[in-house]
């Protein structure tokens, strides 16, 4: 560099003699220093401050984060039969309009001239290709054309098609048509299990029923991993697993698919026979409180939900209430026995079949004379029930109904479960107390009714009911009535299905059964209309009750509307079938039922059960 004092020979060259000010050389030196400082600073900035960003940008060229899908858990019945499971399907999608900026030989002339550098998929597909694609996807060519005639980057052509179909589509090798893996929920049980299971939406999340109730257990958590890909897109190295996928857990329901099918087919037949609007059947295991069947009608096929109506979707057993009618009477009788003022043979005068409380008059459909408490239940007398009820304190009666689970939800976790209506005892007028005793002036759902009958099936106590399979019967039970009261009422219930009762049609050959009919008029716009709800709730076998079956038929309109005529036969069919399915031994040998008493006869037996 320039320095006058040291480099004498060169600097004293006369040609170079000039009196340049010192600051100029200093200035140049300074500039150069500043330049190199800037470089050092920039390097430090890139290496230090900005390193992370740059590393990320670099990694973006070869590192990819891939989603690892997790499958949704299966739903099985109590025997482990699959009721719902996810299977992989393909979704066909397309790129109707693509950027071809960098593509040099792209036919970049857009016909409509809107975006000259975008190319439309339609212009690169021939008519034959469109036709064959439309046939495969089962769409009209116009529909397909409409879907592709959009200025978007992404459009679903058809979601959730079978892998076989997707393969055929892939074989066409059409440009711009792609496929994507998805999962679809499949329900092998179809409409038999529909209301219990519910279904999942397009996003594979539960929307109804158990699918929604057990969403947190069933749903898997998709994982992700970081991989290094080569230029052709092959994964060459698994850099790290960011999150391992967590598959959803399987859920075992308490339902028994055989009993469910029995209930389904019995109800379906009855719906046709009685031209009914709706109906429901619940089967409970009295020993454990597990729900063995839950059937609604009308139902739907969860695998094909294209034409669903709200009517079909409703799970009436849990989300609809009705006035239970006479099926409430056994509780009134039980409370009467429990208070000690009545015994099963105490005579209640039910003549002349009508009674006026305040300004209202209540009556029996068929007037009775003097009846014992047991006969009040057997013949289903409103007057008898009301007379017993008027001897109770309203608070005592309310407490019993509350203990039985009326007026509050059963806490099953089922979406949309309703509590029914049971008003506070302070607001009760005597007429209300009388009508509640025979099941009017309060509303319940069918599950609550089945639940409450546990007190008669279980010697006066109740266990919480469960929709999922229990490994051991619940230890904790709530006592409502004394065992003696429960046994007495059980005998009355058995009289109902015997000759002289309201429901001889509910009898099951080979078993001692008991139950109570209910025939309630429906409230339409605040007034009772000539529309009925026929119901029957029963237990069997009476000697050691195992099952509770509750049946409800809404608006039977083919001539019959009494609980015994409409719901009784359904009860008998379901109860009989369910007891045989569970292998409960008959406790009422009918005359024609032969009993092989001696072992020597065993070989001769051809049919046995």
């Amino acid at each position, binding site marked *: 560099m320039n320095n006058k004092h040291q480099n004498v020979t060169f600097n004293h060259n006369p040609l170079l003699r000039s009196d340049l000010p010192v600051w100029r050389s200093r200035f140049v030196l300074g500039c150069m220093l500043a330049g190199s400082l800037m470089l050092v600073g920039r390097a430090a900035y890139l290496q230090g401050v900005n390193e992370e960003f740059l590393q990320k940008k670099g990694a973006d060229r070869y590192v990819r984060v891939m989603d690892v899908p997790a499958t949704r858990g299966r739903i099985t019945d109590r025997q482990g*039969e*699959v009721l719902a*499971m*996810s*299977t*992989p399907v393909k979704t066909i999608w397309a790129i109707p309009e693509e950027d071809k900026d960098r593509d040099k030989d792209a036919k970049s002339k857009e016909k409509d001239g809107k975006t000259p550098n975008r190319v439309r998929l339609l212009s690169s597909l021939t008519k034959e290709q469109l036709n064959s694609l439309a046939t495969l996807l089962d769409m009209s060519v116009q529909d397909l054309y409409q879907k592709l005639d959009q200025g978007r980057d992404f459009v679903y052509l058809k979601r959730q098609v079978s892998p076989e179909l997707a393969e055929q589509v892939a074989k066409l090798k059409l440009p711009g048509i792609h496929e994507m893996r998805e999962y679809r929920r*499949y329900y*092998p*049980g*179809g409409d*038999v299990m529909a209301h219990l299971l519910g279904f999942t939406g397009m996003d594979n999340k539960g929307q109804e029923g158990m699918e929604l109730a057990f969403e947190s257990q069933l749903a898997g958590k998709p994982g992700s991993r970081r991989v290094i890909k080569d230029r052709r897109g*092959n*994964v*060459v*190295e*698994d850099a790290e697993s960011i999150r391992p996928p967590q598959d959803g857990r399987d859920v075992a329901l308490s339902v028994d*698919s*055989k009993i469910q*099918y029995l209930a389904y*087919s019995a109800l379906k037949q009855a719906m046709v026979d009685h031209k009914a609007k709706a109906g429901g059947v619940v089967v409970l295991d009295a020993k454990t409180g597990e729900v063995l069947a839950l059937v609604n009608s009308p139902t739907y096929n969860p695998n094909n939900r294209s034409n669903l109506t709200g009517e079909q979707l409703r799970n009436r057993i849990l989300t609809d209430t009705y006035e239970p009618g006479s099926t409430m009477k056994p509780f009134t009788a039980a409370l009467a026995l429990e208070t000690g003022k009545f015994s099963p043979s105490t005579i209640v005068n039910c003549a002349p079949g009508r009674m006026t409380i305040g300004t209202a008059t209540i009556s029996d459909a068929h007037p009775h004379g003097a009846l014992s408490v047991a006969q009040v239940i057997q013949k289903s007398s409103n007057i008898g029930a009301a007379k017993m009820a008027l001897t109770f304190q309203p608070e005592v009666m309310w407490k019993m109904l509350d203990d039985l689970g009326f007026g509050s939800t059963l806490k099953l976790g089922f979406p949309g479960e309703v509590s029914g209506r049971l008003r506070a005892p302070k607001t009760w007028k005597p007429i209300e107390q009388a009508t509640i005793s025979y099941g009017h002036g309060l509303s319940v759902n069918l599950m609550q009714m089945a639940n409450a009958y546990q007190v008669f099936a279980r010697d006066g106590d109740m266990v919480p009911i469960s929709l999922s399979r229990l490994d051991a019967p619940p230890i904790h039970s709530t006592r409502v009535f004394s065992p003696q009261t429960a046994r007495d009422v059980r005998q009355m219930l058995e009289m109902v299905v015997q000759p002289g009762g309201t429901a001889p049609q509910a009898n099951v*050959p*080979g078993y001692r059964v008991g139950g109570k009919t209910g025939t309630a008029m429906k409230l339409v716009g605040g007034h009772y209309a000539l529309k009925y709800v026929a119901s029957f709730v029963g237990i069997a076998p009476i000697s050691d009750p195992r099952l509770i079956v509750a049946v409800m038929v809404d608006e039977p309109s083919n001539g019959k509307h009494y609980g015994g005529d409409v719901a009784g036969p359904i009860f008998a069919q379901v109860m009989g079938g369910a007891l045989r399915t569970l292998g409960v*031994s*008959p406790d009422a*040998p*009918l005359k*024609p*039922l*032969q*009993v*092989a*008493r001696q*072992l020597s006869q*065993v070989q001769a*037996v*051809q*049919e*046995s*059960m």
Partner: protein
Amino acid sequence: MARLTGFLLALAILCSLGVVASQHQARKLYAAMELEQQNTQQLDEEWGRLQIEQRTWAGHARVEKLARERLLMKQPVPGQILLLEERP
């Protein structure tokens, strides 16, 4: 000194070749593993499909229909039922 340098150089070349070879090996193995994982998944899915198929063929409605129509089976009426009692 030159010998040592030559030796170390050869060692370094050998090591680097080893690294390349093992890297290649690892990638090949990884690709194979990936293939097997895909295989597992496919078998899993097929199992699911077969389960559903089984449930469809063994559906209660179908079994009942076949039993009634093809095998002409019917429910026994009370007179046809024999009850075996277990003697202690």
